[in-house]
């Protein structure tokens, strides 16, 4: 490990500053979503479409993936090779399940007549959740790459900072979803399925 003025590894500080920048990215998306709430002039409208119970399940899945991420980091730090492989893979799989849920939701909405250019809800919803989904997808690729390294025995405790940085990213993406879940779904006025 190189010497740094703060003793915090450069990679970790880079991720924290990057997350600061990402806050403005998602902040702009969320602000736009709120400004355009209830401004659509043709349907289908959000309260007719949003399926809160379904999304609650995928939200829970994403939260559990964060738990798996914590366990994966802990396993890597302890030098527990089997645990590293297992929990990294589980984190990625739970992320993939979340993405599958999003894919199902998007195609269901499209089937209900909500094309991308249908109304303002369509644009703001698809772009905001789509941006988040893209972040999850990048995270899954990253985790699977780390998992591959773990399989080949190249992810020992000396690499724990690499895993920690990936974990920071993953938890951030998870936290963003908590905000999106609240703002888009819970505050929508949708009554349920």
């Amino acid at each position, binding site marked *: 490990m190189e010497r*740094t003025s703060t003793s915090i590894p450069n990679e970790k500080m*880079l991720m924290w500053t990057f997350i600061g*920048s990402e806050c403005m*990215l998602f902040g702009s998306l969320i602000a736009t979503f709120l*400004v355009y709430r209830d*401004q659509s002039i043709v349907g289908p409208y959000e309260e007719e479409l949003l399926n809160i119970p379904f999304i609650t399940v995928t939200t829970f899945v994403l939260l559990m993936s964060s738990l798996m991420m914590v366990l994966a980091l802990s396993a890597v730090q302890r030098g527990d090779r089997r645990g590293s492989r297992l929990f990294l893979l589980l984190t990625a799989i739970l992320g993939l399940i979340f993405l599958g849920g999003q894919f199902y939701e998007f195609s269901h909405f499209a089937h209900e007549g909500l094309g*991308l250019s249908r109304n*303002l809800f369509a644009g*703001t919803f698809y*772009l905001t959740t789509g941006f988040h989904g893209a972040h999850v997808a990048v995270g899954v690729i990253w985790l699977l790459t780390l998992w591959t390294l773990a399989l080949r025995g190249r992810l020992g405790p000396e690499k724990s900072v690499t895993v920690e940085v990936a974990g920071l990213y993953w938890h951030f993406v998870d936290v963003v979803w908590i905000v999106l879940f609240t703002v888009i779904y819970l505050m929508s006025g949708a009554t349920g399925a």
Partner: protein
Amino acid sequence: MATAEARVHGSPGAEAKSGGTYAGGIWSWITTVDHKRIGILYFVSSLAFFLIGGIEAMLIRLQLAGPENTLLSAQAYNQIFTMHGVTMLLFAVMPMSAAFFNFIVPLQIGARDVAFPRLNAFSYWLFLFGALFLNSSFFLGGAPDVGWFAYANLTSSQFSPGHGVDFYILGLALAGAGSIVAALNFIVTIINLRAPGMTFMRLPLFTWMTFVVSFLIILAFPPFTISTVFLLFDRMFGTLFFEPAGGGDPRLWQHLFWIFGHPEVYILILPAFGIISDVIPTFSRKPLFGYPVVVYSGVLIAFLGFGVWAHHMFSVGLGPVANSAFSGLTMLIAIPTGVKIFNWIATMWGGSLRFRTAMLFSIGLVAMFVIGGLSGVMHSSAPADLQQTDTYFVVAHFHYVLFGGSILGLFAGVYYWFPKVTGRFLNERLGAVHFWGMFLGLNLTFFPMHFAGLHGQPRRTFTYPAGLGFEGFNLVSTIGAVITFLAVLVFLVNLVRSLRTAATAGANPWEASTLEWSIGSPPPPHNFDHTPGVTSRDPLWHDGIAPPPPGEEEFHMPNPSFWPLVVAGGLLLIMAGALVGLPLVLFGVAVTLVGIYGWSFEPIH
């Protein structure tokens, strides 16, 4: 690993004698990860774009020299003034600031490179590709013609059916990403790579302002990115973000744009403030007056800069409460800025002044920025602004702060650090001609614009009829622009001539106080033989470098890498593919992925 280490360990300092810092052919520049070389790449590129933007400015001024002129059509004029703004702000001033961030900051904090050398090269390639991509639109169906601010819904596919706006969106996406990546790198570098004893309150002011500007960049660019994504989707997939017929609101663009756009003006000026805060003490032989206050003022300017975006939108009609709040916050910014002005004056007060060219440009900045700042305070008042907005008065204002501020400050930096970068001096006599020509030229160009504006001449209009009282002001402005352009040519002559002189500068030709002057000119590839231990804010004036510990120091220099170029090239292909077709996008994605994996698994040392 072996080669770099062996070279460094073999004989530190030998490279400096042979000019080894810049040795090697074009491949060594393409694959370089050395912050000094990347700084030079930034400088040369930004100078080229400064000239392109300057030629565009000349075309604008020649078109407006007389009434009813027909040099440029309205269509061509719109493209030229749009590209003049975009080029000067994003491809000339920002990257020239980045050139100094790159070359100077690691030296000032006693580091051997930035925290992420390959990421640094990546930032440069993104900037270059974005700038070239956007400028290629001139030859591929027409440049954007909607102003650098690109207000919706003029930019919709209905009103801008050509590809100019698409080039704007995609080119700035590349360049903007490059700026964000570079800023992240510099934040980590400044926090984490300071030499022992280099506390925050001992950082040279230029490093401090780099730090502040980096935060502005990482926080201000994302809203702009998002607004351009909205615009891209509106144009390509028919979403309704800025489409009134579908319930969308074009003002959303204005808000998101200016939440970026106003911090952007501080991104442009604070590096210049940092430069002259280092130059003025050097040529006054006095420490900077009120160092902590200058630092805090810079931070406060940046902080307030996020709360004033709607003063660009007074004429939109946001209502008296919003207008008053934004007026008040805008006026507040005058306080920390004024504080800085007084600190620079107080630094010079009673000093033994040496009027070298760098000092002339610095004093020029102080004077010119006061004029631009005063007109800025004038239109911070919403009712006054309603009279001034969209007239040449505003053009006069922001050119006094951007040209009189940023450009003069950057030239101060060029004359100040040229000996450090090259080991050679720029000619002082030509430098004085350059300064006075530019000083005269900029005042002749921009001062009459105040009057033209108050007489009612509108901005962004390709001509004006005779008899409205604009002719005299415009003719003087054009003459001033010609003088400015000639002054820039004098600078270019000076640059080329000076590069042919002998390298006689030595380590510290100006007897300056900061760490970059403690090592050879040009610095050896590894910068410091021993990591300096700093014990003072002005280490070279106060014997403020601790003696090195005995023995040789272990360090590794990073290997050159072409992966940053591959990843940036892949992203460029994706952007081009957005205009050409899906196969090219997919090819770009593949190149990017290959690049990222090649990068990740490449040994660093």
